[in-house]
């Protein structure tokens, strides 16, 4: 699957106007048909990273440096209107709470048809047929009925499927999925994860899949990037990351994660520092069992230690 990456984020820094950095030098790429998992604890900057890929920034948050390249187009150099058109057509977003993506006063069918009109110029019978096809593709039961339903008439799992159908309507090549199954019951989560794998296989969709749940990442991702305090601290293939984690934070997270049948958890002491309180040296240093003097003074770079394997730690 190597080749020119579909999406490249290069040296992205975000900050609050007049305030601290929120993301620092975030770089990664995404190949066609690949699922890149982005994992880390609350407040590490996963959602901001995901939004940046779509050229979106919450109010007050500004891009300070870096590029977000889709093929060769830098999203950050586009006007707001151009970005809006780019989104939906090339990249789309799915997030945890479908209710905030779906408009409560319009039917599911109507909302999908709006996307079809905007991005693909479909209307009338053609739009209706394509909508029903999309609803069936995401395995929403009784598409004809759901087409006429309002969001509140669907269960949580069905809403998530409807939001996925809407995201697919513009035939994007990249889906940014931010905690897409976190609010769902496990049995429903399992169905949605299967659906993502199917979509990837059928449509060669690439995913930036964001989750705080290591086991979800382990199940769906081909490659994984681990974030801590606004930066990527490790990047590896799924196998390498779970079999031989390198960064002390990744190791700590894995040891603290309650897997099925695990006998003993090792609690990682402390907590993620919030922006503005990042230590000057290695940001993980206050919690790191392998800390040395240098770690407190200098900030480690993300280094490639093996092909495709990167780690931000002096001791690797």
């Amino acid at each position: 699957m190597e080749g020119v990456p579909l999406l490249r984020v290069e040296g992205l820094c975000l900050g609050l106007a007049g305030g601290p950095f929120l993301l620092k030098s975030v770089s990664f790429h995404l190949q066609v048909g690949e699922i890149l998992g982005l994992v880390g604890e609350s407040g590490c900057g996963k959602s901001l990273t995901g939004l940046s890929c779509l050229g979106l920034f919450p109010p007050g948050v500004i891009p300070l440096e870096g590029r977000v390249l889709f093929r060769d187009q830098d999203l950050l150099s586009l006007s707001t209107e151009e970005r809006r058109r780019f989104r939906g057509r090339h990249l789309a977003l799915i997030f945890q709470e479908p209710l905030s993506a779906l408009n409560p006063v319009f039917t599911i069918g109507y909302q999908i048809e709006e996307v079809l009109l905007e991005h693909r110029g479909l209307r009338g019978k053609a739009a209706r047929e394509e909508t029903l096809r999309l609803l069936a593709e995401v395995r929403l039961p009784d598409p004809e009925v759901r087409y006429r339903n309002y969001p509140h008439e669907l269960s949580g799992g069905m809403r998530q499927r409807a939001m996925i159908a809407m995201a697919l309507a513009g035939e994007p090549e990249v889906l940014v999925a931010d905690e897409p199954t976190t609010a769902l019951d496990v049995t429903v989560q399992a169905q949605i994860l299967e659906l993502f794998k199917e979509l990837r296989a059928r449509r060669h969709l690439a995913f930036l899949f964001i989750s705080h749940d290591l086991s979800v990442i382990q199940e769906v991702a081909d490659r994984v990037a681990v974030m801590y305090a606004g930066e990527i601290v490790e990047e590896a293939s799924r196998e390498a990351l779970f079999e031989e984690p390198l960064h002390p934070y990744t190791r700590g997270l894995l040891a603290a994660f309650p897997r099925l049948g695990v006998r003993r958890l090792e609690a990682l002491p402390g907590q993620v520092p919030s922006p503005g309180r990042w230590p000057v040296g290695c940001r993980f240093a206050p919690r790191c069992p392998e800390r040395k003097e240098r770690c407190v003074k200098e900030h480690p770079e993300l280094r490639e230690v093996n092909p495709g394997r990167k780690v931000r730690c002096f001791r690797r």
Partner: protein
Amino acid sequence: MSMLVLREVEKSYGLRSFWGQGARLSVLRELSLELRKNEILGLVGESGCGKSTLARLALALEKPDRGEFYFLGRPYWRLSRQERRRLRPALQAVFQDPAASLNPRKRVEDLVTEPLKLLGVPRQEAREQAVEMLSLVGLEKELLPRFPHQLSGGQRQRVALARALITRPRVVVLDEPTSALDVSVQAQILELLLELQRRFSMSYLFISHDLPVVLYLSQRVAVMYLGEIVEEAPREVFLAGGRLHPYTEALLAAVPGKERPRRPLWGEPPSLLRRPSGCVFHPRCPEARDPCKEERPKLREIAPGHRVACHRR
């Protein structure tokens, strides 16, 4: 010895007129559960299955419509008000969202000492005990003057724990106590819960939607589906790979992290408003047969300590 027993309890709530006058939503049906001495009993189930209703009954916050609730061997709701008040401090709760369960206008010191003050413990002594309790849950006494919003999620949950434990309860009901926490903080709290339980010989009813967490912490586990316990067994039984209730098997198979051997369970739990006839699980059960639609399976013991409600087990 039983610390807490629910025997064939039923609980339903009145619905608004939309469904017609006098319509009732039956949440718990003939549910029985026993929490033993020094035991951690896990209760797992998906959203809306009635876990929190069960927690309220187990905490004696609500009275069952039918059935019995015994606490420390006493028929709680048949006791006098005064006797009930004497028992209360021995039964405490910790909830999911400490931000919501801790009064935002009270300082840590007041939050932690409040249960003691209600028991008439003098202020100075209550304060000393609070300091001791805080250190037991891993907090420094510098936090005493702080308000909940000045604490992290993990610190707030530790405060909630200190508040629950300060009366030295015999039973603690924990309803999703780590669900709002980060992985690393969750592991810290789980470890703390285990340590305190051993130290004070308490019993926990640990309620969660997270099967791996429940299996990590508990000695015995009960699985709940649509207001009923469908299976109950020692922890090891769930991990041994033998036959379990079809719903439990589906829950285990749905735990992410591995390639799934078979297709995930289709559909979502139906709402309590449309509780299926016969076996509550039959519309989603891959093994359902005709009798499952009509006859409700009883919880039967199929091996020592292992009870299942299924016609085919």
